[in-house]
């Protein structure tokens, strides 16, 4: 797949992060409650994460959209998707029925649709990462070295 298609997909993922982060920043107290409902962190941990995570999403989303700090943003995006899948996936086996809190307080899209959706986003992010770290062909590398002098 071409570079431009990769950028479009990355920008799409970036926009999702930007929207998700902004929705959470609007009401961090409600987001802290959503995190607490996962019953993984104590209240202070939930508060710290509610204050911090939305901004990580916003910066990560902006980096993906603007293609600045791109590789780092892809790594963070993959980590966030994996973390969310692990946390949300563990709720049903533990007998919990929680709102995911992905796009603000009370957002509830159903267990499997959410996990499948995030699984697809994680797969897309990993694919972008793989493409980014793929070794350059000798021709391209030689061209870059030549331009770099």
């Amino acid at each position, binding site marked *: 797949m071409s570079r431009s298609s990769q950028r479009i997909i990355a920008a799409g993922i970036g926009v999702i992060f930007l929207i998700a982060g902004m929705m959470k920043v609007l009401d961090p107290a409600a987001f802290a409650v959503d995190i607490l409902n996962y019953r993984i962190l104590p209240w202070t941990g939930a*508060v710290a994460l509610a204050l911090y995570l939305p901004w990580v999403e916003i910066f990560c989303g902006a980096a993906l959209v603007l293609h600045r700090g791109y590789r*780092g943003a892809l790594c*963070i995006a993959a980590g966030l998707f994996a973390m969310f899948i692990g946390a949300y996936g563990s709720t049903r086996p533990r007998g919990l*029925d929680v709102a995911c809190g992905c796009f603000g307080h009370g957002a509830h899209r159903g267990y499997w649709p959410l996990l499948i959706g995030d699984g697809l986003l994680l797969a897309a992010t990993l694919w972008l990462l793989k493409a980014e770290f793929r070794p350059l062909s000798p021709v391209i590398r030689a061209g870059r070295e030549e331009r770099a002098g």
Partner: protein
Amino acid sequence: MSLAIRQCLTILLLAVIPAIGTGVWHPKRPSWQSDEVTVAVARSWGASALWVDARADADFENGHIPGALPLNEERWDDLLPGVVDAWDPGRKIVVYCSSLSCQTSRDVARRLREEVSLPNVFVLQGGWEAWEAAQK
């Protein structure tokens, strides 16, 4: 690879700055103090605890904590006066819903704090299920 790590760290560190600002100045910043109480703690408050049942009317009619007043979001305007009348400054309000994962007790507790400006509003950890389990 080292470039990616540097970029990761930059993004993660940059996010700390507005996060601190959010924690200090955001009008809807969460309190660091937890508002959850266990059944044992709430019961130890005795008569100074004002129990508020945030579940639907049908659930309330099927059974509730003795002395609890109903207050759900469906009939907020009808039920709120009863809670406000029963409250006095020395009492602690303990809101509960059905179980550990229910959300309504938190929503009702929040509205009591923000819209009615009531202090000392707590959420019962585990809700009605925890109360019933504590009776066995």
